[in-house]
């Protein structure tokens, strides 16, 4: 754990992103959203698996973009990454765990 990491370093990390950078990120995110909607509209032609795969990759990219650049998690203090990534892992565990358990409705105690 980063002990006494100096504040100025983080501050610098923020300043490194000029407004132009934010506009660029914003534009990329907008494009991703457009692509998402576009493939949604044509999903019948590309097949369900491919559609899901693209969609997941795109939205993970989008979410990562928001978290890393708008929320500045990239380059910010390690502790922030920790308190966000750990619960995110638990959340994914929970979601996948629940979906697995509920998809296979065993009916046998053992």
């Amino acid at each position, binding site marked *: *754990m980063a*002990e006494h990491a100096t504040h100025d370093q983080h501050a610098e990390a923020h300043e490194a992103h000029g407004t132009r950078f934010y506009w660029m990120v914003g534009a990329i995110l907008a494009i991703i959203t457009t692509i998402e909607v576009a493939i949604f509209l044509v999903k019948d032609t590309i097949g369900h698996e491919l559609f899901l795969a693209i969609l997941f990759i795109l939205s993970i990219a989008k979410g990562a973009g928001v978290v890393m650049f708008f929320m500045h998690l990239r380059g910010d203090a390690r*502790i922030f990454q920790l*308190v966000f990534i*750990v*619960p995110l892992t*638990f959340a994914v*565990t*929970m979601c996948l*765990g*629940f979906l*697995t*358990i*509920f998809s*296979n409705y*065993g*009916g*046998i*105690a*053992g």
Partner: protein
Amino acid sequence: MAIAEHKLTSVSPATASSGSFPWRTWLATVDHKKIGIIYIVSAFVFFMLGGIEAMLMRVQLGAPNNTFLSADVYNQLFTMHATTMIFLMVMPMNVGIGNYVVPLMIGARDMAFPRLNAMSIWLFLGGGLLLYMSFLTGGAPNGGWFAYAPLTQVQYSPTSGMDYWILGLGLTGIASIAGALNFIVTVLNMRAPGMSINRMPLFVWMNLVVSFIIIFAFPTFTVGSIELLFDRQFGGAFFNPAQGGDAMLWQHLFWFFGHPEVYILILPVMGMISEILPVFSRKPIFGYSFVAFSGVGIGFLGFIVWAHHMFGVGMGPMANAFFAAASMVIAIPTGVKIFNWIATMWAGDVRLTTAMLYAIGFISMFIIGGISGITLASPPIDLQQTDSYYVVAHLHYVLFGGSILGLFAGAYYWFPKMTGRMLNERIGKIQFWIMLISFNVTFFPMHIVGTEGMPRRIYTYEAGMGWDLWNFIETVGTFFLAFSILIFIYNVLSSLRNGEVASNDPWDAATLEWTMPSPPPSYNFLHIPIVNSRRPLWDAKYPHAAGDDHHGASSAPSQVRYEYTDEETAGAKDIHMPSLTFSPMILSGGLTIAALGFVYINKDILGLPTRVAALGFILIGIVMVAIAIRGWIVDSRKDSPYLGQHH
């Protein structure tokens, strides 16, 4: 409490007052120590209530076919007993002691967010009062502490009890999350210079771990109970199979929270034990980092074992095998703790004070509870033991034999610091032995009757099953248990009045809280200490013995002081502490009133008037919250170095 108050006021210029009880300085306080004491006292009151409920249950079960309680009352009692003990006793007691001790241990003047801290205590009390109001309004919750669907749906549980349960626990849940956030920030960000993460006392470590568990575990419970509220009041059907819902979903949401919850109850206590054992063995803790990281490991593993409470629901052998294996793995880090505790005492100078006896009793009883947990973690065995008194035995061995005995250890250990008076050791030891023995008399036979087929949560049983004698013994044990608690109350009250006056460091301890006067002044440290090892005070007292302390210590000695000149003490008035404020209390009150409104928002009890009144409550609540937030902002500006007036 009178003496404690007197002591506090005598040393703290901020609260100097005389005459009658200074209500204002308590109700509007933002001092972590006062808030800690309010937590501790109210949790103890709830302990009595939960204990009285348990005694009533035990009287009913003392003989077969007993008619002392009706089935309905019995069901309310065990639901409220468990809810009280878990949410209104052990959790807030942990928070209370943590609140008092953690900032002192890390060399901070207060919690990171003192006003939020005040909000937590009042919200917790609001939630507790709301829960207990249900007794007066037509029936307490009666669905068991895990409120299995669909029994808790409105058609099977038509009284408002379950609504009180949902909203009462909702309030305490918000209080817990706010409190946990406060602990996280305090521990991570308010440490004195040199108090690095790997020098923090283990009690602080465990509070940090538990705070993370709280903020990650409570949300699923919140979602589950919101969904339950929607089912009961707003036309949902999340957990109602008759309308397409799923009863299993509730169980998963609940236990995803519920299992981590049991570690929320035990880990802070394990932290206390890890402080007390070294002090009374006059040795450092054995394997500091193993003990710390096993706590972290337990915290992580606790999130992947939830379905071991559901081996019988038919998830299939694969899922059960996974959760069984994960549950068993938890024995490893727990074992590491136990062995390290024993190793800490090994070759030490073990002084059997009351606090130490309780700490040893904790280990001893927890081993039994942990091992019975391992048998439960084996699904085939669990299928015989689940929902029987065997589980009741397990949970009391870990919760009473574990948490409660450990909390008594903490109480005897820190009481001098909190009140300035020593508890009577002789009475304490008598209390310990009565409690330990009667605890076993009460709960050990439950293993046996469970194995002999006695299901749990039955309000009565027929004669001739072989359960009668054991149940009678358990009931007798309960009365001795209650007696031992009365002894404790006597000890506290008489010691407050004429107990031996406590010095700064009555136990020859090692951590920072013992450098301060007992009780500490409102600003805690006159000069923030500079820490250079895991045992700053010990090293200051025993420089020669500190020599081999190369674990986590730098060569320079810690700078801790506990004697100040009058001149220096006079300088304390320049230390700025946040001012008294009622806003947190008003905010909590508003939320409580709004919650009361939500209990009745869709009830047909008196037709339209009820709903109008309920809506009125909600509106009043919202207005109070709004007013409080405004006041809060204004108050915090007063303390801001940039926006406030100068002091």
